[in-house]
């Protein structure tokens, strides 16, 4: 039942906002809907934690501790982002970048987008998972092209084509999966239910599944933003409105990675080899290294952090690829802290760009002077994302690096170089932006920095202290997928 609420509220929100999205109270309605989703998700989480995994609607929907943790995360970040977008979008409108109708589109799509993500997470049917991912792409395409500027249109077009094609590969993978499954489970709807597949994964045909995994990896990997399939990502992040960049980086990439991991579990079961893991490790490593060097030459602040997202998704993929209890745990922890931190950073970045009226980093100066909260938010967020303790990102990177050093020493030089380069690239830029002489204008609406510090506070806590129930929760998930 809770599952239904989690899905219905954002859907209803989408329809409501499609009607009233242009009114003055729309942002509040948006936040309210997200809050509702968050509450429903919370209830669902509690039930899963206490009652264990369960399925719903003739097993079409299924929650275990793995996806419920992502559901909770998605709902939470969705809510905070809605809070952030309240003043942000008002300011954008005030600056004349948006019309009321665009705002209506924005709000409706925002809700539908969170609906698609939640659907993708909650469904038990790999086919529906695919459908939801495709739908998520479509909604975000509209969000990215919101400003209707040439750049935003170009970005949206590339995003649409690349992800569409990628997703198509994923569909082929799904078909192959079904093809392998129906031999064991017989034709019909059940053959795509993950729970059933997971039960019989040992008997699935290895050759087919390896082929299927290749297609699935390329397909969903495009949405994860793995190099060299990542090309859409920086454009989409840079040109869309900042709240969208926040949810793209913070949530959508996670969901895509979730799909990859789910299929990895099946393939590992069928092959009994480390084939899938090796592929993921390779892609992850490549992404980390390439992203690091891309970072070195950025001028646009949002592009900068988009590439850092690629880097971190690569790191997670690497971690999940390594497998094993510690690495998987680290991967999930990294998912959490990355989406929290990165969205916080985008919040700060959004206000920073509004303040100085540009996304070009040379022209952003002295944030700590002009607006200490934004300045410090950006500084701390950056330090956190760069893996500086006592923030949580460090915890996960610590686990990943040490495990890699122990299990796959040959990978660590690459990681060392990549992390060093990334640090130099990002920090040198951010330092000049926050410090030094100031430049910037007053904002018509007070910026919303509560989300920033809420996120950073959580990340800080996760760095120093992981509550036992949370860690048990993680452990259950690890047991499921590790």
């Amino acid at each position, binding site marked *: 039942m809770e599952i239904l609420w989690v899905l219905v509220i954002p859907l209803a929100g989408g329809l409501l906002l499609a009607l009233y999205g242009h009114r003055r109270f729309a942002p509040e309605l948006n936040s309210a809907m997200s809050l509702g989703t968050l509450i429903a998700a919370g209830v669902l989480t509690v039930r899963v934690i206490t009652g264990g995994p369960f399925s719903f609607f003739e097993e079409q929907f299924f929650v275990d501790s793995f996806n419920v943790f992502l559901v909770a995360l998605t709902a939470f970040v969705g809510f905070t982002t809605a809070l952030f977008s309240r003043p942000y979008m008002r300011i954008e409108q005030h600056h004349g970048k948006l019309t009321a109708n665009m705002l209506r589109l924005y709000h409706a799509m925002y809700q539908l987008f969170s609906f698609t993500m939640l659907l993708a997470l909650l469904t038990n*049917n790999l*086919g*529906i998972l*695919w*459908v939801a991912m*495709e*739908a998520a792409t*479509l909604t975000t*395409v*509209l969000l990215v*092209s919101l400003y*209707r*500027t*040439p*750049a935003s*249109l*170009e*970005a*949206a*077009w*590339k995003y*649409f*084509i690349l992800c*569409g*094609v990628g997703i*198509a590969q994923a*569909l*082929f993978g*799904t*078909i*192959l999966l*079904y*093809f392998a499954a*129906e*031999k064991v489970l017989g*034709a*019909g*709807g059940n*053959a*795509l239910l993950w729970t059933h597949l997971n039960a019989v994964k040992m008997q699935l*045909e290895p*050759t*087919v599944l390896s*082929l299927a995994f290749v297609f699935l990896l390329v397909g969903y990997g495009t949405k994860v933003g793995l190099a060299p399939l990542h090309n859409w990502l*920086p*454009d989409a992040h*840079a*040109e869309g409105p900042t709240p969208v960049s926040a949810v793209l980086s913070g949530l959508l990439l996670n969901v895509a990675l979730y799909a990859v991991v789910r299929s990895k579990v099946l393939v590992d079961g069928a092959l009994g080899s480390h084939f899938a893991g090796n592929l993921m490790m390779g892609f992850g490593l490549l992404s980390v290294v390439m992203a690091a060097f*891309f970072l070195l*030459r950025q001028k646009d602040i949002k592009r900068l952090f988009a590439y850092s997202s690629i880097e971190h998704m690569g790191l997670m993929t690497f971690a999940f690829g390594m497998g094993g209890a510690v690495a998987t745990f680290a991967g999930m922890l990294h998912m959490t802290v990355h989406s929290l931190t990165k969205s916080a950073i985008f919040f700060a970045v959004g206000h920073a760009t509004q303040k100085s009226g540009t996304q070009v980093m040379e022209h952003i100066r002295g944030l700590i002077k002009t607006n200490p909260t934004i300045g410090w938010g950006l500084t701390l967020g950056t330090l956190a994302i760069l893996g500086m303790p006592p923030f949580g990102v460090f915890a996960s990177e610590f686990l990943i690096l040490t495990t890699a050093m122990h299990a796959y020493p040959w990978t660590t030089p690459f990681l060392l170089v990549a992390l060093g380069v990334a640090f130099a690239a990002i920090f040198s830029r951010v330092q000049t932006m926050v410090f030094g002489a100031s430049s910037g204008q007053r904002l018509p609406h007070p910026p919303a920095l509560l989300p920033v510090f809420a996120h950073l506070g959580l990340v800080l806590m996760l760095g120093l202290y992981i509550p036992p129930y949370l860690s048990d929760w993680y452990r259950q998930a690890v047991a499921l997928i590790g």
Partner: protein
Amino acid sequence: MTTPIIGQVINLLASLLLLIAFAMLSQRRILSLINLFALQGLVLSVSTAVVAYSSSQHHLYYSAALTLILKVLILPSILHRLIRKLNVKWDVETLLNIPITMLLGIVLVIFAFNLAAPISQMASTITKGTLGIAMASVLLSFLMMITRSKAVPQVIGFLAMENGLFFAATSATYGMPMVVELGIALDVLVGMFILGIFFFHIRETFDSLDLQHMEKLKED
């Protein structure tokens, strides 16, 4: 009709699909491209119907009908209206000249067949031989998307890829579960609409659908 004949029919249709895919690869004019796409849809739905008849899988009739409506009637008409509105009839230049593209296409086909061979062995369907063709047509439309330099043909390539996938679904297995197919169809439809709107935005911002204008976002 007896099974072997049906098998031959299906194989015939499959090879027809492949042929159409090649034709699209080599086709310059957008109009005929759209017609080819419609034809491909038709062949697809016919083959689906035949499979449905042979294997008495009734839900395949629905998907055949769905294909017929969506990919033979709706999408082509949308595309026709689009290009009339945007009056882009011609697609003179491809990024790779046709013969080379064809050559690559043939290589791809061989590759796909080799890849699909071991899998189609274990298929229980009478259509098992056609999995390789399905994969081939997917790859071919991928290649087509790469080589076309205007927006509309790229989209057509995208849809053709969708067709290939659908054919794979019918040939490898007797079609996906109905709910999934409905979802896929819905996505394709919505995607088409969004693209339709898109084209106009692109058009009024860049006053052409030539993709050369959309290469501003890059690392310099």
